[in-house]
């Protein structure tokens, strides 16, 4: 089974982000980057399917040169080869723009299954995988925790709210967006890193994929959450103060 996993490189989880001078993106200098966590689970699912079924796992990632480290990590963990879509304006592309790039790169591979994380840890649109399915004209399912290959296609376990699960069957080829936590992630090994050196990473310029990159969404402004402390002293009799407190908790803080 040929499986493509679309992976995004994101800022390291504990980074203290700074906003750039234009106020529309973060200042990217001096940070470390890592693999988007839901994508790491998508890769893990793909590797386990390959281990059980045989076949090939191809990772696709779009972004500037630094994305190479995340691609190497995926190869080290066991992916067979990689496609790196080189683009320096990655931050300016919306989900549709990214999905168009991915679709153009994936189409010639003609895979039986395309996996990606259900959302990114930085922008968190949760759209790219779904749009990708639409662009490729494939069936899709989101929030997947487990994939089972059946004789006719796939049986997948979806996570619903409040601890409910849904089992869905769908034909292949298909696009699935993977939820974190369905599997145990494997750790990177020295042997994996050494073997990864001899694996192929094909570089494709975004322009070569000849897709329209004009964003339909424009970032107006990004800002850090503002810390604010506001203490109010409720006065009056205990009964009045309690009533006022309940009022505030219900309508201002909205926790009741």
């Amino acid at each position, binding site marked *: 089974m040929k499986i493509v996993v679309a992976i995004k490189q994101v800022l390291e*989880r*504990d980074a203290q982000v700074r906003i750039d001078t234009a106020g529309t993106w973060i200042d990217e200098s001096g940070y470390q980057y890592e693999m988007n966590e839901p994508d790491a689970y998508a890769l893990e699912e793909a590797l386990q399917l390959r281990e059980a079924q045989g076949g090939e796992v191809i990772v696709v990632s779009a972004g500037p040169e630094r994305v190479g480290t995340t691609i190497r990590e995926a190869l080290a963990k066991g992916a067979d080869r990689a496609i790196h879509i080189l683009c320096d304006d990655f931050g300016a592309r919306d989900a549709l723009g990214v999905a168009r790039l991915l679709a153009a790169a994936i189409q010639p591979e003609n895979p039986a299954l395309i996996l990606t994380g259900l959302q990114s840890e930085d922008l968190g649109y949760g759209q790219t995988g779904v749009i990708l399915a639409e662009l490729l004209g494939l069936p899709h399912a989101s929030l997947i925790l487990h994939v089972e290959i059946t004789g006719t296609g796939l049986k997948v376990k979806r996570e619903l709210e409040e601890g409910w699960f849904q089992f869905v069957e769908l034909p292949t080829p298909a696009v699935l967006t993977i939820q974190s936590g369905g599997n145990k992630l494997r*750790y990177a090994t020295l042997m994996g890193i050494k073997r990864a050196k001899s694996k192929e990473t094909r570089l494709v310029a975004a322009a070569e994929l000849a897709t329209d990159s004009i964003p339909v969404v424009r970032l107006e402004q990004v800002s850090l959450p503002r810390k604010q402390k506001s203490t109010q002293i409720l006065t009056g009799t205990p009964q009045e103060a309690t009533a006022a407190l309940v009022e505030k908790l219900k309508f201002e803080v909205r926790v009741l």
Partner: protein
Amino acid sequence: MLLLPPALAEPTNFSIPEKLLFVVLLLVSTAAFWRRFSLVLNKILQSKKDPSFHLFPIGKRVQDFVWEVLCQAKVVRQRPLPGLAHAFVFWAFCAFALVTLNHCATGLGIGFLDPAGRFGRVYYFFAALFALACVASILGLFVRRFIVRPKWLGAKLSYESGLIAFLIFVLMTTYLASFLVTPTDPSARVLWWLHTLALLTFLPLIPHTKHLHLILSPVTVFLSRGSFSRIPPLSGDEDFGLVSGTDLTRVATLQAYSCVECGRCTEHCPAANTGKLLNPKEIILGLRGYLNEYGPASPEPLLGQYNSQQAVFQCTTCGACEFQCPVGIEHLPLLIGLRRGAVNTGSWEDDHGSKLFLALERGSNALGISPAERDKFIEKQALPLFDGTQEYCLWLGCMGGYDPKGREIVAAFARVMDYLGTSYGVLRKEKCTGDPVRRLGNDLLFQQLAEANLEILAQNKVEKIVSICPHCVRTIQEDWKEYGTPPEVEHHSEFLARFADKLPKQVSEERIVYHDPCYLGRYRNVYEQPRAVVAHSGQLVEPPRSAERSFCCGAGGGLAFLGEESGQRISHNRAEELIATGAQKIAAACPFCNTMLRDALAATGDGAPQLLDIAQLTARNLPIAGSS
């Protein structure tokens, strides 16, 4: 007239058939010896060369050889009575080298040492004194092995040891008896032949039994890896640690064949003492078994039939085995080597282990906590930030930066440094030194952490580090060397002892028992400094297992992160021993020991002694801020 010592009766005039018989027996015996010994020698020589092995500097090797082999210092010091008995047997063997050579020469009619001559008379008498000591010793050792039977020697009686003891006894008594007869007496001839037969039976037994250590262990001691727990760097793209026979180096194979099965390693092993699968002696014998069956060129995995992965990952890397070993076996590079083989190829699957690795692949500390928490701690304690102008960089480490009790130790030590007026600062950013992943065998992650930290330190122009964690200290100073030049580093016990004169003392009547951390004692040879610090606060008490024989807390080797142990908890075993001293306080000098013992003490219920780090003991003696 000068009283002459009695002369040895040496038979002369051997007949031709007698000479022929002797020659035939000598050849048979030598051939039987060589057949087996050449096999072992070939296994050693066929093993791969160790690229990181250097014979030079040779001075330390000679020193170790004289001290450990010729003086038998380790053998005697760590097990005084049987050690002394062994030493006398060894020294008698040395003294007998010349005697035996002449004995064989006599059988061929070319004896060169006249028993009645001046030198011969004195030398034989000298050898006889050793023979007497040897007889007494071998009888003692026989009683120990077959009647007292310490459990370290294994449940099975070794009859070959009995046979060897008997042969040594015959060798010595036939020699001594020869002083009581005259050379012309027929019994002199009988004694000569008995001595010869014992000798020629003994010779082929050497390579067939653990007595191979007679030949190999002096070489093993001389060809050590050079320092305690020295983990050799991996070489080339196909070296992942000890995966199969092809990864065994000559040093490793030599060590596997040197084991004398005395069980000192097992006697002191925290895992073996708490009912776990790991038994360091069996690890070495497992390697030997593997080499006997498959040899050093085999692709067969090392973990499997002869050694189990489970056992290898139960090691706390406390190093008691390597420290104790009298024949120069270095257990830690072997145990860690086997772990490297399993982790670097991804064949070790452990939920806790993977969690630790992933936490360090993505995050900065082994506890998997956000670095923002470290920032908050630094802010709350108002610890100065290192800016390149201060003398010391105070390295927090994972425990000091994130663990609540570790933070208390850092805070106490910072108070002491403030009192002394020492200039110091903490780094804005720090990563785990890589100690747990180094000992668990994850070379990829260790390299990443070491390189990232070396870069941070270089950027900050750090020249001197002081840390409350012996694991950090060891890893920074020794293990990072593979990837760069680490700054000077010391443990806070060394710092505190150096400034002891300037710090207030309040020696109370309180009894304080000191627990030696493995990574401070055996790894760094720091025993006196923390004791000196403790003695400034109360009456120092030693637990039964202390200093270089100290018993591990169970945290080392990454095991603090690996979840529940099988068998008894090592920390509980140690805590019970510390409580039994009756001390009111337990002094620790390592945040990992602290956390393990704290949990173990909590499990013993009320009335357990209070547990404090030596920095906290010192800080208690300081005048309360503002009141001085």
